[in-house]
């Protein structure tokens, strides 16, 4: 069972305090988008063995959403950061690079 640190309230808690919310950094496509754009927005999700960016909510806690950068194989957590951002912080990306040189996830590396 994972432990995660909520960047909003600072609690380091066990997984049962949190709720997983799928992939992070998804760009919304609404009316006016074409079928391919909308399809990839809604259905085409990353499912990597290794570095991944996810959304979590501290639902049995402060209630805030945040992002987590994790390794889905080793379960190492590279870091968590607030959800109000369009890209992972440099510090976390550097940490991942140290462990996985040359990593790539969607447009981030």
């Amino acid at each position, binding site marked *: 069972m994972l432990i995660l640190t909520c960047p*909003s*309230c*600072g*609690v380091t*808690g066990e997984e*049962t*305090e949190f709720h997983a919310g799928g992939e992070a950094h998804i760009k919304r496509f609404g009316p006016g988008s074409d079928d391919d754009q909308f399809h990839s927005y809604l259905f085409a999700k990353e499912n990597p063995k290794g570095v991944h960016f996810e959304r979590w909510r501290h639902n*049995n806690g*402060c209630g*805030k959403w945040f992002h987590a950068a994790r390794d889905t194989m080793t379960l190492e957590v590279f870091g968590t950061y607030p959800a109000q951002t369009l890209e992972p912080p440099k510090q976390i990306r550097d940490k991942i690079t140290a462990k996985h040189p040359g990593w790539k996830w969607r447009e981030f590396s």
Partner: protein
Amino acid sequence: MSDAVSALNGATYNGFVTVTELGLRGMITLRGDLSSAGVKNAAIGVTGVDMPGQRQVHTVKESGLAWMSPDELLVMTPYAEVGDKLAQIDKLLKGKHYLAVNVSDARAMFRIEGAGVREVMAKLCPVDMAPDAFTPGVFRRTRMAQIPAAIWMPSDDAVQIICFRSVADYAFGLLKDAAEPGSEVGLFA
């Protein structure tokens, strides 16, 4: 107001700690920019306690402020004063972007007292209740068995617990079960 009753109407239980439902308590959810002077002034103004930092609580008798999230405070007051306090907040924050609502009747508050209170909570919450980890002044929102709850320690031998009113029976049942004589763990003794 004379007809108002809390969820368990002050029920009590004596185990290796005592469990008491505290009856009606005034509670206001105040959301806004906690760093703004307006919100701080309103919060401090209606309670008379200092602004709490992240995951902290300040109380004096039935009044107090608890840090709920980066944009939310729990304002605690005597039940009878909630209406006035709400009006006061609305007046102080008029024209600002904020939200203040009465949640007094949506919640139940319990107090457990005795030497074993840390143990009782450690049976129910995935939180480190050791004396060096959980100190008076800390305000922790977490999971108590299967329900969300917020806990803090007014003193070293007491814990106060807030949960939703609808599950007050369940919460009381949990606390009674955890406080049953003979089930002391002896870890924090």
